């Protein structure tokens, strides 16, 4: 079943990409065309085939102690903040994270 504009609006919300009405229409057409391109994947009998998530098979997480290591390249605060759209002192500044009701700001 093809994706509806409502489906695509839901995906846009999840992906945090605000789309205008026109964009939503174009995006819906694209998504349906792109998903059609993927069809061969659904036509395989893949019983017993292991997935390959990565070309290097034996990867494992790299763990480290919670200690400051001088050899690790941590950005100084001024460098870390220099590309931020909004900052205050040592911090990134963001609008309200909880809601828009009176008093939240």
């Amino acid at each position, binding site marked *: 079943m093809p994706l509806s504009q409502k489906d695509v609006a839901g*995906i846009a919300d999840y992906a945090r990409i*605000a789309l205008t009405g026109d964009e939503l229409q174009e995006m819906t057409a694209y*998504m349906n065309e792109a998903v059609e391109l993927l069809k061969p*994947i659904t036509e395989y009998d893949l019983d017993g085939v292991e997935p390959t998530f990565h070309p290097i098979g034996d*990867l494992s997480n790299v763990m480290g102690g919670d200690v400051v290591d001088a050899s690790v390249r941590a950005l100084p605060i001024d460098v870390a903040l220099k*590309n*931020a759209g909004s900052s205050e002192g040592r911090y*990134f500044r963001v609008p309200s994270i909880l809601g*828009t009701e009176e008093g939240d*700001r």
Partner: protein
Amino acid sequence: MANFDQLSAAQIAAGVRAGDFSATEVARASLDAVDAREPQVQAFLEVSADLALKAAERTDQARARGEELGPLAGVPCAFKDNMHLVGTHTTCASRMLENYESTFTATCVQRMLDAGATPIGKANMDEFAFGSSTESSAFHRTNNPWDTTRVPGGSSGGSAAAVASGEVTVSLGSDTGGSIRQPASLCGVVGMKPTYGAVSRYGVVAFGSSLDQVGPFGRRVEDVALAMNALVSPGRDPFDSTSQDCPIDFLEHLEDPIAGKRVGIVPQLMEVQGLTDEVRDAVNGAARALEDQGAQVVEVDLPNIASAISAYYVIAPCEAFSNLARFDGVRYGYQEQGCATLAEQTSLSRAHGFGEEAKRRQMLGAYLLSSGVYDTYYYPAQQVRTLITQDYERAYEKCDVILMPAAPRTAFKFGELSDPTQMYASDMFTISNNIVGNGGVSVPLGLGRDSGLPVSAQLQGPAFRDRMLLQFARSIERAYDASGIVAPDFAGKGGDLA
């Protein structure tokens, strides 16, 4: 004296070492060529003249002190604009990162600089590397130096065009589905995607983390081999957990004959829809050229190869969606002003910062990773990836390398492939190698008999046999006398070594 665009990387480094010319003179020649050629080519998003001259001066001072110079001493180099280099912006050709200043230097860039290369600037690309024509750059198009009414390919189109026009000697690009090999083919230069893990991805803005690999462009196989040596030294990068030790001297055996080695041809791929006659015939000609040098041509089968493009357009958008989630408009990147909530700021920053194709890929990835859909596409795509990997393993029992086209056709006109999914087919010959993680190289075969534009062959090989790929590429280069060619409209324009 000669124009610097006629010199190989090794000749430049040797000339600087011998004192025939200084690194500063070469840097000035390259910047002069950029001035003269760039109005028609537009390969660069940023020209880093100050950094270039400072790096060249350091090289010249090191020589004056009697120090040993690196193998790329004084060699002008461009970097794709998804690679961090302190002192430049890293925009990924996106409004999202228009004002982003590099906060550190990528390992691949640093290794080129450590080998003595001179950083001429940052090259144009498809936005976040989503594309095959460099048309999705948010800033400007890049013109193919062989015909400026045509695209250079992509996504590393600026890196390819800067080398093809002779503005620089070598450049770096990144290849997620063909983004080095396809533009190399369209611009008539050598372009290598090394085996996944051979080159560190640290400091390269991520697109598809299990697919991305950095590699060099050059006008000679030897130049690419020299750059590869710099990129893999001194071993694995502790800042990229997927980086592997690759202790290979790519210059060793480069000139060795290929007699007795086996070249695989996949008959199914040579008949695929969309492949033009001139490209097919040129690649068959390359097979004969290798046969003439004593190689044996054998037919091999890759039965699941036709599904590679489908698997890729599941895996790549999913990884892209995951990677590009970091662009939240808070820590860096475009930030929408005057929003009441963080959620609104995020959604509008992403809506107005990303271009159309970047939004399409992320939307597709978001959908494919959503509950229920994951089991229909994402998981099966990774199973098909296993089948394709097994196909290659079986093929390499019968042959040493596989020869095929790098791109189905020569450079196309701007706007010609306006439908996104039509554009995706540009990578039909390159994508499977990213899925399995193997190396591949594009090598020029001269001009197509119908279009008069550059045509290339692609050589693919087993994991970490990248040196052998370059040995085969060198054999083709020798047969076609295709070494060191600058696009004729630009050769010698600015860039004389005084």
